[in-house]
C-alpha cells in the first residue's frame, strides 16, 4: 500500500516566535524553520508501517515556498521514498492545502494519508478533517496508536478524559498526536540516500486547486506576559484564593 504524508515547514519549535512590527503576522525572516513536529511523527509512523511490511511506498508532500524542499529532504532523510513540492509563495490556508492534497491523492492514489494533528504555526487543526470531508473518506484524528490490516485501520484517539478506538475502512485519513511515537533522527547513511531520492516540483494548478486566501488576518498580538506567582501557606488559603481572587471555583 502507498502512504501519503503531508509535511509543513514551520517555525522551529525551539525558537521564540515574535510578532511582526505591523501586526500582520509572525516574523519569519532569518528565523530557523523546521518540519512541523506532528508531521515528523506522521513520517515516523509511515516508516514504521513500511518497516513492518504494511506499506510499500511513502510519498511526502509539502505545499509552500521553494525552501519547503528542505523540509521534504528532512522527511526523505528519515526514510520516506519520494517527495512532491507544490510550490506556492503565499501562505495557504488549511482549506487551500486540503484542496491541493485532494488533487495529490487523486493522482497518487494512496490507501492512507497520515497528517499531523495540527501545524504548530497557526494551530489550525483543520487540514486532515477538511481533506477527509473533500474526499469523503473515513478519518481517525489525534491518533496515539495505529494498527493497519489489509483494508482496515484501527486508530486509538486521544480524546478528553480518555481514549477512543475507531475502526476505519480504507482508504482513510489519519492525523497523529504527540504520543504516537518518538521520531528517529536522520542518520548519515539515510542522509546520503536522501540525496538520490526524487523530489518533484508542482504548482497548485497542476492539481486544479484554488489556493487563494479566503480569510483576512486582522491583527496578531504577543500573548500577555505571565504574572509572577505567589506562594500560598495552606490548602485553605489556596481554595480561598481560587474562589475569591481567581473566581474559578
Amino acid at each position: 500500500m502507498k502512504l501519503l504524508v503531508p509535511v509543513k515547514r514551520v517555525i522551529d519549535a525551539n525558537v521564540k516566535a515574535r510578532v511582526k512590527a505591523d501586526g500582520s503576522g509572525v516574523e519569519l525572516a532569518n528565523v530557523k524553520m523546521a518540519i512541523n513536529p506532528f508531521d515528523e511523527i506522521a513520517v515516523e509512523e509511515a516508516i514504521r508501517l513500511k518497516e513492518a511490511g504494511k506499506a510499500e511506498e511513502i510519498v511526502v508532500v509539502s505545499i509552500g515556498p521553494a525552501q519547503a524542499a528542505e523540509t521534504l529532504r528532512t522527511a526523505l532523510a528519515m526514510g520516506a521514498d519520494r517527495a512532491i513540492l507544490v510550490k506556492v509563495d503565499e501562505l495557504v490556508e488549511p482549506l487551500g492545502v486540503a484542496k491541493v492534497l485532494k488533487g495529490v491523492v487523486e493522482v497518487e492514489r494512496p490507501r492512507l494519508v497520515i497528517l499531523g494533528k495540527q501545524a504548530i504555526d497557526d494551530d489550525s487543526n483543520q487540514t486532515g478533517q477538511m481533506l477527509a470531508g473533500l474526499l469523503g473518506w473515513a478519518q481517525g484524528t489525534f491518533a496515539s496508536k495505529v494498527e493497519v490490516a489489509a483494508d482496515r485501520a484501527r486508530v486509538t484517539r486521544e480524546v478528553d478524559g480518555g481514549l477512543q478506538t475507531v475502526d476505519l475502512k480504507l482508504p482513510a485519513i489519519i492525523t497523529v498526536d504527540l504520543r504516537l511515537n518518538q521520531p528517529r533522527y536522520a542518520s548519515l547513511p539515510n542522509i546520503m540516500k536522501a540525496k538520490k531520492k526524487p523530489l518533484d516540483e508542482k504548482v497548485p494548478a497542476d492539481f486544479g486547486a484554488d489556493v487563494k486566501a479566503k480569510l483576512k488576518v486582522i491583527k496578531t498580538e504577543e500573548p500577555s506576559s505571565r504574572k509572577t506567582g505567589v506562594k500560598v501557606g495552606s490548602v485553605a488559603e489556596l481554595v480561598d484564593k481560587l474562589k475569591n481572587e481567581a473566581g474559578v471555583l
Partner: protein
Amino acid sequence: MNFDLSEEQRLLKDSVERLMLDSYSFGDRRKYQTEKRGFSEAMWARYAELGLLALPFAEEHGGFGGGAVETMIVMEAFGKALILEPYFATVVLAGGLLRLGASEAQKAELIPLIAEGRTKLAFAYAEPQSRYDLVDVETRAKRDGDGWILNGSKDLVLHGDAADKIIVSARTAGDTRENDGVGLFLVDADAPGLTRRGYPTQDGLRAADITLERVRVETANVIGDPAGAFPVISRVADEAVAALCAEAVGSFTQMQAITLDYLKTREQFGKKIGSFQVLQHRAVDMFVDLEQSRSMAIYAAIMAVESDASERERAVSAAKVQIGRSAKAIGQQSIQLHGGIGMTMEHSVGHYFKHVTMLDTLFGDAEHHLRRLAALGGLSGDQRME
C-alpha cells in the same frame, strides 16, 4: 565565497543538534558524568547509530567521506552540549592518524570497529618535557626481531583510560626534537608493560598518564613509516585544532546565550540587570568575540585540509589564537555577569568556562600559536620576522 551549508550538511547539523537537545541537557550531562567511565556509553551507541563515528572516513572503509566542515558541524553541536564522550580522541585524533597514516589493511580492520562504536582509541603524544612541541618525543621504540619494544611515558592522554587501543608516538631514531625518527605505534590498552592512571581533567572530562615498560608492538601495528610519521602527526594536529575551534565556538555560543538570558532575567535595584548600559557593552563584547571566533573556526575548517603546510598552519594557528583569546574573554565576562552563581557547580556557565580553557591549552594555547603564526609570517604570510 559561499558559506551556506549543503543539503547533507544541513541535515547532519539538524540531526546532531536535535540529538543534543533531546538527550544532552546539563542535567543529563551530570548523570552521564557519574557513569563508570565518566561519559555515556548509551550516547556513544547513538553516535554510532547516526553514523557520526564513521563521519570522516572514506566510503570504501565504511565511512561517509566527511571533511573538515562536517567535523566542524558535529564538534560545534558537541561543544554546545559540552559532551563527555571520547569523540575527539577516537574519531578526530586517532581516526585522523589512521586515515592519513595507516595501511589499507589497518584501515580495513580498525575503521569499521570505530564506526560501529566497538573500539575506542586515544592518541598518546604529550610527554612531561614536551610542552606543545609534538616532535619533542623521548619515548623510544627499539627494533626487536620483527617487532618493536617501547619504553617511556606519556601525559594527558585524552580519554586514555577508556581507550581500547592507544596510538603512541615514539622515537625510532634521532634526538629529541628532530623531525625525522618519530613513529606511530598502535598498542592494546591492556598490553603487558603498559600502565595507565586515569583522572578527571579540570573540565570534568577524562585523561590518563601512561607508562610504557618494554611494551612489544608487532610490525603490523606500526602506523606508517616508523621513522617518518611526523608529517602525519602535524597534519592531524592541524585538523584537530580546527575541530577544537569548532567545539569552542559551540561552547561560546551557549555561554553567550545563557548569559544574555540571565541579563534579561536577573533583577537588581528593581530592574533587569540587562537594562544597565555598562552590562550591555559587555554583552556586545561577548557577541563580537563569539562572531570573530566563528569566522576563524570556519576559516580553519576550510584550510585544515589544505596541502600547502604553511598556508594550512597559518590559518589554523590564527584561528587558535582567536579561540584562546575569546575563551578567556567570553569566559570571564560570562562569569562576571552571572556573579557568584556563575562559579557554582550547579550552574552550567562555569563548566563551559573550564572546558574552553582546556580547549585553549590543547595542541597549543593562544600564545604558542601566536608565536608559530609570527614565525610563519603572519596570517598573510608576508610579515615574516627575521
